[in-house]
């Protein structure tokens, strides 16, 4: 794995997260080191309680690490205050949620444009951009629909569009298909993979499902707060081809 090593978009060094529960300490993350490179689709896989969600939260700046460094797009996350983190997310990060988390008062188009609203973009420009991104995720017919008028798959596609619209350096996805049936899951995963490839985005996905993880370029297996294995599906592919 040397030729695809471009620029490291995410660099995690010796990361610890220790929760205090009563008198005992729980080590959610126990010394994690890895890098994620530009244009990669990575999956973090583990059972519940393995620390995978904690890791994602810290990468997105939603939680503070107890110890260690997180460098995203050249900036240290652990030293930022909440305001700086919000600003950083606004400019560099897209987020896809398990339960979609669209705002019920807004239609699909407005939901997608929401992060642009936070950037202070004017209404016309941001709606035009949201419109383009919705076309990209095949939701041409549902632009004016409110979340409760759409199926789960459609809602998650709006969610994907919302993450893409700011053209972020990294997209984080937290169990993006957790609330979808397997067929729809497959659809959404394929969509995500395609769009990420086309847009040359970097995607970090957290899941407990090994099958879903197999869509990724690299798979980080995490257990008890430690990365136990990093699989590279591309190399496997190469090997298969070679054989």
């Amino acid at each position, binding site marked *: 794995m040397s030729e695809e090593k471009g620029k490291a978009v995410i660099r995690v060094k010796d990361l610890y997260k220790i929760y205090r529960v009563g008198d005992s300490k729980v080590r959610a993350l126990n010394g994690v080191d890895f890098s994620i490179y530009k244009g990669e689709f990575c999956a973090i896989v583990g059972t519940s309680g393995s620390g995978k969600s904690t890791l994602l939260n810290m990468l997105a700046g939603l939680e503070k690490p107890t110890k260690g460094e997180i460098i995203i797009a050249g900036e240290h996350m652990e030293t930022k205050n909440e305001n700086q983190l919000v600003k*950083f997310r606004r400019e560099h*990060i897209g987020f896809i*949620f398990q339960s979609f988390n669209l705002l019920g008062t807004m239609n699909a188009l407005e939901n997608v444009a929401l*992060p642009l609203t936070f950037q202070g973009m004017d*209404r016309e420009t941001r709606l035009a951009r949201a419109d383009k991104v919705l076309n990209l995720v095949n939701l041409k017919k549902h632009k004016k629909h409110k979340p409760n008028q759409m199926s789960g798959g459609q809602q998650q596609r709006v969610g994907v569009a919302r993450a893409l619209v700011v053209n972020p350096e990294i997209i984080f996805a937290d169990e993006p298909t957790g609330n979808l049936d397997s067929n729809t899951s497959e659809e959404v995963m394929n969509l995500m993979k395609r769009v990420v490839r086309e847009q040359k985005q970097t995607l970090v996905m957290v899941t407990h499902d090994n099958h879903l993880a197999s869509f990724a370029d690299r798979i980080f297996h995490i257990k008890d707060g430690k990365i136990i294995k990093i699989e590279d599906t591309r190399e496997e592919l190469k090997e298969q081809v070679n054989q």
Partner: protein
Amino acid sequence: MRFIDLWRMSSSNLWKRKMRTILTVLGVVIGTASIVVMISLGLGLNKSMMKEIEENGGLTTITVYPDYSNDTQDDNTERQLTDELVETIGEIEHVDVVSPVLNINVVGRYGSYENTYMNVIGMTTDALSKMDIELKEGTVPQKDAGTLQFLYGNQVINEFYNSKGGGSYWETGEVPDIDLMNDTIFIVFDTEAYWNSKYDDGMSSENGTPVVPPKKYLVDTCGVVAGGPEDYGQYSWNVYCDIDELIKQLKKVFKNKAIPGQPTTTSGKPYKELYYSSIYVNVDNIDNVSDVQKSIVELGYQADSNMEWVQSQQRQFGYIQAVLGGIGAVSMLVAAISIANTMMMSIYERTKEIGIMKVLGCDLRNIQALFLMEAGFIGLIGGMAGIVLSYCISAIINAVVKQMGTQMQLSFIPIWLSGLAIGFAVLVGMAAGFFPSLRAMRLSPLAAIRND
């Protein structure tokens, strides 16, 4: 975030929860209306008082007297009221009308009727016409009339008494049978000589010659002030005339003698100049009266106006207003608490939404602004509706008071009060929303990605 987007989001949030918004707004409506109506009562009282003062006395009038109180010099001519001073005062800013006033006591006679207490006030015709004296008949003394003309106050007639018995108006209640307008009234200017001749017992003359009764002059009447013998007004008791004609007349009457009321030299000789008894000053606006008064005092003269009394009255009404407003403020406080409660509820409900917004990169300040604006909106809508309600209540109060037979406008809401009330309502709303909005700002974004 742009302001317009904040505006759009917060108003749509309120719209989404119509019922709750309406109920909260209702609290503000009642709060605003109670404060405004209470204050309007105080303002109405104040306004009625001012109107009353305007009717008898005028608020913009300043009377200037020579100030003897701090005069250490023997020669008091320096502090006398001269034409020069009249001119100086005329040059003070905001002075609208200025006129010298010459006050003199004369005796009026018509047949057997006599009025020994006629107070004649000479002023410039300019000032007289600007004083807006309401007339029953005739005109105010006109400029260049050529002769001395009197304008009688409506109660002057009461002072005529029948010297051949029959008693005065005060004893009998009968108004003397004189038509001031058309009957010829004779005036005696030299009252001292009049009294001397009247009670002459032969001894008052120093060298044996009998006292010659003073000459009486026929003075035309140019008008009579409106009102019956019992209607007291500020012009009721005096006789007004053109000061230039009066001076001419007095010089003619007294020749080289001192005119009564005028200062004399130590040897009893009159000064060459004629000094005025007071100076009438009218200021263009009530607000400037105090300033003008101060400037005149600084010149070294005494200046009187109704202002001090009015100010103390206004202070009293101010207390009344504060007490009434305080009562109204209690309901506003209740409204503020209900706004805070509504915002709190709203934030609990929208924990997830706020979290999502934070994850998506909404600035913390914007989140706070969003909730502050919602609270402010409640205040704004409530304030405006409250003002409408206040005008309705005010109209009802005034209608009821009118039915009870008073002319007074008890409740009065000026425009500034409406504006202030709306501004206050917005402020109260935002103050009530402040802590909830802080809470919203501090909510953890993790709440959003918790899957429940």
